[in-house]
């Protein structure tokens, strides 16, 4: 890239960082993206990629360092981004959607201009796309929507696109459409455009990137021309320094099989089974399916077949207006019934018993749940699940935002309960938690990609399975 180094970079970050409260999402990143460059950004979940993208697109302000653009701001400099979550307005037509980012679409003939621009972009990026620019976005398939969104980023109009950020752009495209996109990225780049490319599909990264930036824990750990990397080397660069922590050897449980899902998930009694992989690759859905299959019988009464521990406490965990005791007993109400009414004495006993067993730090379980710290609220959710006596416990990333001390206590609790014959299905993006499991299923694109057992559960193996390594496209 000797020729492009002479050109002024579209965006330049100097020691840019961002903290959210006590969490440092991005720590002092210095980076410049020049015309004619395709920079691939790789890293595990929470490595800081999206924070970096949000700073470059101007969605969030850096709390330290500075960001310089070619022109005044990101929009004037032609910085455009295709976000991972779909950002089209589903109630508008394809052409009408172009009106949102492009301010110069005004006047009486704006529709004709918009139609022309989006059709030209679609024809150029995805020849033979077959998308009518007058159809309502809600009526398009997921792949078509993603194609429209990508085409919008490359469309002419407004300030011309100079830097296009593609965040997992091929996640719903088939192989031939993905190939067309990669071709276009190369064309765009040779025409003097710059691209930031984020993907978990490594062969795509190697197909288009001129430079690869590896991120970990909010910082850039490696930044070299793409030719300087091999696939395995890249995966290793993303991982943590290998922590040689002795696995506590557990006798492989030989209980009866209690879970056998059509997706290939199996678990025996007394087993701790991990669901690993990058966030949002179908683990939570797999858990929900297993849980709902077992608990959706409206005639159910008495024993509880399965219990669920939510990770997103605020959304599907705590009942914010209720007391600690009521939050604890919620899932076990069918066990506390006496003549159709709730036995309040039994409820109070259950709550205080679990306060002792799991160490919830409060002097009175009648206090509101929100008087507890986040870690202790999470303990209440664990107590809620364990108090049901359910033989199967499903956990959806339950340690999010929980402090180290609480984690250690809960890990111990899980081990004890598993030894007593309970089965745990545990989704987490934390490698440390997966290494506590007897077996781990690594998910990719909504399916089980690999099964690891015992000593095979290492960060390298899980990362390698999370990222697509093969030559053949998905």
């Amino acid at each position, binding site marked *: 890239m000797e020729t492009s180094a002479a050109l002024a970079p579209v965006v330049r970050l100097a020691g840019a960082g961002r903290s959210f409260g006590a969490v440092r999402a991005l720590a002092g990143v210095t980076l410049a993206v020049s015309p004619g460059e395709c920079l691939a950004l790789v890293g595990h979940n929470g490595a800081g990629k999206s924070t970096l993208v949000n700073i470059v697109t101007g969605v969030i302000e850096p709390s330290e360092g500075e960001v310089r653009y070619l022109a005044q701001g990101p929009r004037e400099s032609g910085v455009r981004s295709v976000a991972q979550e779909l*950002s*089209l*307005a*589903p109630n508008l037509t394809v052409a009408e959607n172009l009106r949102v*980012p492009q301010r110069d679409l005004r*006047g009486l003939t704006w529709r004709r201009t918009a139609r022309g621009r989006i059709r030209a972009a679609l024809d150029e990026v995805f020849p033979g796309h077959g998308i009518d620019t007058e159809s309502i976005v809600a009526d398009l398939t997921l792949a078509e929507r993603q194609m429209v969104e990508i085409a919008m980023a490359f469309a002419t109009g407004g300030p011309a696109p100079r830097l296009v950020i593609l965040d997992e752009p091929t996640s719903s495209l088939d192989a031939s459409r993905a190939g067309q996109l990669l071709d276009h990225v190369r064309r765009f780049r040779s025409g003097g455009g710059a691209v930031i490319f984020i993907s978990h599909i490594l062969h795509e990264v190697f197909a288009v990137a001129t430079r690869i930036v590896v991120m970990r824990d909010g910082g850039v750990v490696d930044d070299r021309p793409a030719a300087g990397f091999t696939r395995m080397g890249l995966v290793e660069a993303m991982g943590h320094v290998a922590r040689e922590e002795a696995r506590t050897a557990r006798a492989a449980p030989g209980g009866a099989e209690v879970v056998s899902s059509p997706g290939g998930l199996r678990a025996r009694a007394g087993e701790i089974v991990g669901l690993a992989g990058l966030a949002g690759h179908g683990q939570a859905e797999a858990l929900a399916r297993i849980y709902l299959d077992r608990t959706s019988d409206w005639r159910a009464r008495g024993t509880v077949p399965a219990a669920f521990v939510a990770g997103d406490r605020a959304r599907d965990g705590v009942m914010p207006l209720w007391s600690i005791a009521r939050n604890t007993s919620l899932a076990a109400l069918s066990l506390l019934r006496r003549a159709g009414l709730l036995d309040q004495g039994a409820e109070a006993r259950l709550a205080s018993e679990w306060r002792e067993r799991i160490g919830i730090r409060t002097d009175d379980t009648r206090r509101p749940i929100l008087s507890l710290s986040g870690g202790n609220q999470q303990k209440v959710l664990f107590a809620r699940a364990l108090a049901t006596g359910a033989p199967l416990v499903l956990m959806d990333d339950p340690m999010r935002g929980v402090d180290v001390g609480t984690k250690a206590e809960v890990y111990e609790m899980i081990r004890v309960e598993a030894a007593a014959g309970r089965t745990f299905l545990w989704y987490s993006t934390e490698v440390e938690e997966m290494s506590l499991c007897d077996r781990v299923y690594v998910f990719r694109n909504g399916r089980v990609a690999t099964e690891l057992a015992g000593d095979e559960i290492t960060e390298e193996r899980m990362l390698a399975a999370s990222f697509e390594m093969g030559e053949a496209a998905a």
Partner: protein
Amino acid sequence: MRRIDIRLLLPVLSLALLLGAVFWMQPRAMSYTGLNLLFNLAVPIALATIAQMLVIMVDDIDLSMGTFVGFCACVTATFLHDTPLLGALVLLAAVGAYAALGALIEMRQLPAIVVTLGMSFVWSGLAVLMLPAPGGASPGWITAVMKARPPLVPMAIVACVLLAVASHLLVTRSALGTLLRAVGGNARSVARSGWSVVGLKATAYGLAGAFGVLSGMALVGLTTSADANIALRYTLLSIAGVILGGGEFTGGRVSPVGAVIGALTLTLAASFLTFLHLSPDWQIGAQGVILILVLAARLLVRRRAAR
């Protein structure tokens, strides 16, 4: 537009069906005067429905529409009649208040349903202060417009067609209307593109206020006097009209032409029930039944289409 929206088919069909039933029962309605009488009261309802639609379009709902139209009617029958300049200023201030409400709702992330419910008491209180008892008089020019007798087609139909075309151009065709609909569809994406969602919501509410004012004026033009409680039913009628016309409560999916047709259908449903010699005690319930039937038909059509 090359294709006609399928969503419009059902409102058009239900209107045609009702109209057919009315003509069958009362052939004399099939005349210039008959049509004018049938649809006269539809004009203010259609205006209020468009106002409601503009609020629903940005994913909110306005529960103060009825009392607001009543307030505007009282201003028209008193201030606008006695001191036209002051009356115009008051009505302009009411539009400004609507825009401010929209900005406030977005800025403080308040639920529109609560804010507008509260405002409904404010509007109705102000209206009672102005006109404690029914009274006032309509400014002559408004009555002249509303009671005009254009050749061939009655005024009510002309006004409704004009309204449908104007609001279609404003909401569906214009660049501003497209942006406002985008707020209902994906507000986050609009904000990320650098637009002020607060400003856009204020615009939508301001436009809604303007149509509400027109509705109040049109109502006075027809009744020639006003009363604080004259338009209480408009809140629910306007919401029902938007939904009948193919709109949806969320997601910015609205149809201005459909909304006008929805308002016409609701007005006609009332006349139809009168022709059936149904006691007024039962009319509101029967109107509800018609509404449920149309919405059920829409649900079935959607399900079929989704398959």
